[in-house]
C-alpha cells in the first residue's frame, strides 16, 4: 500500500493566487432556526484553501467557524454561496455524492473525540474504510485495511491499546485514535474542530505535533480554534468575525 500523503508535494503557503484551490467557499451564508427565531451564523464568508496548506480558522465563540468547517466538509449545505472542491461545487452534489465526498476526501477530528463507545480502538479506526465498501470488497481488502489501521495506531503510539474501548483511554489517547480514524481512508483534507479544546496543555501539544507531522507529509488541514497560540501553528490564519472573514 502506498501512502498518498507522502506522494503529494507540499504546496507552499504563499503561492500564485491563480492556482486552482483544493477547497473554496464563496459568499457562503447559513442561518439556523432555533424554534421561531432565525440566527444568521455565516453572512457571506469567502475562503480559499490550497492543497497541502494548513489553514486555521480563528474566531470567538459563535463567530461561525465550526459552521464554515461543516460546510467545507460537506456535512451541511449553505443557504447561499458555493463551496467548491477542486473546482466542483459540492453544494450541488446529490445527497449520495455528498456522502461519498465525505467518505473519500474528508477526515473529521472533533473536540470531544466522538469515538463510538461500543467499538474498540481498532474497530473505531477502521470504521471509515468499512463505510465506503461493500461486504465482498471489505472481505477482499480486510488484511490491507487492518494493516493500515494498525500502522496508523502504531504511528500514534497506540499499538498496545487496539483492543481497548474508548472509555478505557485517556483524553489524549482518544484524540489520537480520532486522528488515526480520520486518516484511515487517506483523505485529501483533514477538518479539525478545536482538536485540543478538551485536552490539557501537554496532550494538546502532542495532538498539534501529530497534526504537524501529517501536514509535513503533505496533508491539507483546516483547523478551527479560538486560541491564538494554537492557531499560530498553521501556515495561514483566517479570522472569522460576525459570520464574515475579516
Amino acid at each position: 500500500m502506498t501512502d498518498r500523503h507522502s506522494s503529494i508535494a507540499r504546496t507552499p503557503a504563499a503561492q500564485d493566487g491563480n492556482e486552482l484551490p483544493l477547497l473554496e467557499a464563496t459568499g457562503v451564508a447559513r442561518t439556523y432556526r432555533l424554534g421561531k427565531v432565525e440566527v444568521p451564523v455565516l453572512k457571506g464568508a469567502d475562503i480559499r484553501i490550497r492543497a497541502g496548506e494548513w489553514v486555521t480558522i480563528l474566531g470567538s465563540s459563535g463567530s461561525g467557524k465550526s459552521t464554515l468547517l461543516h460546510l467545507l466538509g460537506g456535512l451541511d449545505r449553505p443557504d447561499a454561496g458555493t463551496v467548491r472542491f477542486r473546482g466542483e461545487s459540492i453544494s450541488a452534489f446529490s445527497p449520495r455524492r455528498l456522502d461519498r465526498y465525505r467518505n473519500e476526501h474528508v477526515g473529521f477530528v472533533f473536540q470531544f473525540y466522538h469515538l463510538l463507545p461500543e467499538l474498540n480502538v481498532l474497530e473505531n479506526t477502521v470504521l471509515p474504510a468499512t463505510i465506503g465498501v461493500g461486504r465482498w470488497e471489505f472481505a477482499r481488502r480486510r488484511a490491507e485495511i487492518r494493516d493500515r489501521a494498525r500502522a496508523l495506531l502504531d504511528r500514534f503510539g497506540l499499538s498496545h491499546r487496539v483492543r481497548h474501548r474508548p472509555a478505557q483511554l485517556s483524553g489524549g489517547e482518544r484524540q489520537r485514535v480520532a486522528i488515526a480514524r480520520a486518516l484511515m481512508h487517506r483523505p485529501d483534507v483533514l477538518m479539525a474542530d478545536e482538536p485540543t479544546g478538551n485536552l490539557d496543555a501537554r496532550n494538546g501539544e502532542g495532538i498539534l505535533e501529530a497534526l504537524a507531522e501529517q501536514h509535513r507529509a503533505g496533508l491539507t488541514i483546516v483547523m478551527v480554534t479560538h486560541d491564538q497560540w494554537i492557531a499560530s501553528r498553521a501556515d495561514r490564519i483566517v479570522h472569522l468575525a460576525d459570520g464574515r472573514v475579516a
Partner: protein
Amino acid sequence: MGTYTRLLVRRYLTTRIIPLIAVGAVALCVALVIVVVSVMSGFLENLRSSGRTLMGDVVISRPVQGIPHYGQLVAALEALPEAAAASPLVDTYGLVRMPYPEGRSKDVVTAQVWAIDPESFARVTDFERTIWWKPASDPAEALAMEEDDPRRTLDDGPLKAARAMRDPASGKPGALLGMHVSVVNQRQRDGSYRPRVSHWWMPNHEVTVTLVPISEAGTVSQSNSRSFRVVNEVMSGVFQVDRNRVFIPLADGQEMLRLDEAPIVDTSAEPDADGNLPVIGTSPARATQVLVRARDGVTPTELKSAVEKAYEQFWLSTSADAAVRAKPPAPESVSIMTWEERLRDLIAPVEKERQMMRILFSITYLVCAGLILAIFWAIVSEKTRDVGILRAMGASRAGIMAIFLRYGLAIGIAGSAIGTGIAWLVVRNINAIHMALGEEAPAWAWVSIGLLAMGAAGGAVRSTLRSGALATLLWTVAALGLAGIAFGLASHRGFLIWDPAVYYFATIPSQMDWENARLTCVGAIVFSVLGAAVPAARAADIDPVRALRYE
C-alpha cells in the same frame, strides 16, 4: 450497504442490556404462541387420529334396518385395491346393568353398544391397542408401572378373552366396557387406573345388556336382555367414547336386535299340523355399519370414492338376482362417509377455535412491535451523536436506517430462536409440568427459594445503607418476587388444569406444531423489523450537524 452496519449491530447487540430485554420479550411472545397453538394443533390431530383409530377410514352406514348380505359387501370391499380390510358391526343404544353396588338394586347406565366381529374389527381399527387390561409388552413398560397397578400381575388371559370376546372358563359371551363406563375405575396421576375397591375390578364381573329391537316399520318391539361376562375394558383416549361405549359380539347384538338370519314364512298359506307357516326363504343377517380401512398411501377420500362404486356394484348385482328376497338398500339410502366427515361436528369447532387463537395471539406481535419501537426510540435518542459521527464519515441515510433495521432483524431472529427453544422444552414436557402443577411443591423447593429471598432482602438492606437507589430497588423487587414464589409454592396444593372430561383426551398433546412455529417466527421477525422501522427512519433523518453538537 457498508460492512459497518453488521459490525455495529453485532456490537450493539452484545454490549448492551436493553436489546436483551427486547430479545426476551420477543422470545416470550413467540414461545407463548407456539405452545398454545401446538397444544391446540395436537388436540385437533388427536381428534383426527382417534377418528381413524376408532372407526377406520370410511364408514358405510344404514341405521336400524341394517344392510343385508354384508358378508358379500365385506368381501367386495376387501377385494378393492384401495382397501386393506373391512368389518361389519351393529351400532345401537342400550342399557347396561352394572354389577355394583352390593344388594339387589344395581346401577344402570345408558351406553352406545357396538356389536362387533373382534377379528375383522381389529384389522380395521386399532381395537387391540385400546384393550387396557393386558400385561406389559416389555420390561421397561413393566418397570414404569406403579406397584399397585393390577396390570403388573396380569397374564395374557384377559387379552385373549378380549380377542375372542368370550369367557374361556364359562364359554359365556364377553363384553368390553369403555374405561369410564364403570364408575369404579379411578384414574391415577400417571394415567393408569385402579378400581376404587379391588373387589370391583370389572373383568371379574358380569353385566346385563338390554337392547330394544326396532322393526322396519319403525315400531319398538319387546326388549331383549342378555348377560355378558366383562372380559376386559378399553381405553381409546377419547373420553366421550370411553364413557359411553360397550362392545359385545356381533352375533349377540344381531340376535338381540333381530338382525340375525331368520326364516321367511308365507303368511298367506295355511299352517301345518304343528301350526307353523311354510318357510319360503331366509332373511339374511344384517349389519348397521361396515367399516373400511384404507391401504397405506390411500387417502380416505380416495377410498370413499372406491367404496361408493363398490357399493353400487354390490347393490346392482344383488338386486338383479331374482333368488335374493331381501334386497340391500339403494346407494342413496346408505351413508358413506370418511371418518373426518363423521367427526365434522367435533373437528370443525376445534379448527375454528385454533384459528381464533391464532388471530387473538397475533396481538402479541403488535406488543412485540410496540415494545421494540419504544426500546429503539430510546436507543436512537441515545445514539444521536453516533449517527452524527457516522454521517461525518460518509454513512448515508439509508446506511443509518439499515443499522437499526438490521438491529430489529437480529432481535427478531434471536428472540424467535430462543422462543422456539423454550416452546419446544415446554411442549415436550407439558404433561410432566402439568403433573407437577397437580402435586404439592416439595419442601426443598420453597425452602431454598425462601432462602434466596432472604439473601435478596439482605442485599436490599446493604444497598440502602450504601445509598444506592437503583440497587436497593432491584434487590427489593427480587426479594419480594422470590418471597412470593416461595409463598406460592408452600401454599400450593395442586390443581388440575387439563380435565379429560372437558378436553376429550387423557393427556395433553405434546407434539410441536413446526409449521405453526415457522409461521410464528416469521411473524415475530417481520413485526420486530416493523417495530424498528419508525426509529430507524427517525435516525436516518437526524441532521448530522445537530447530532454532533448533541449533548
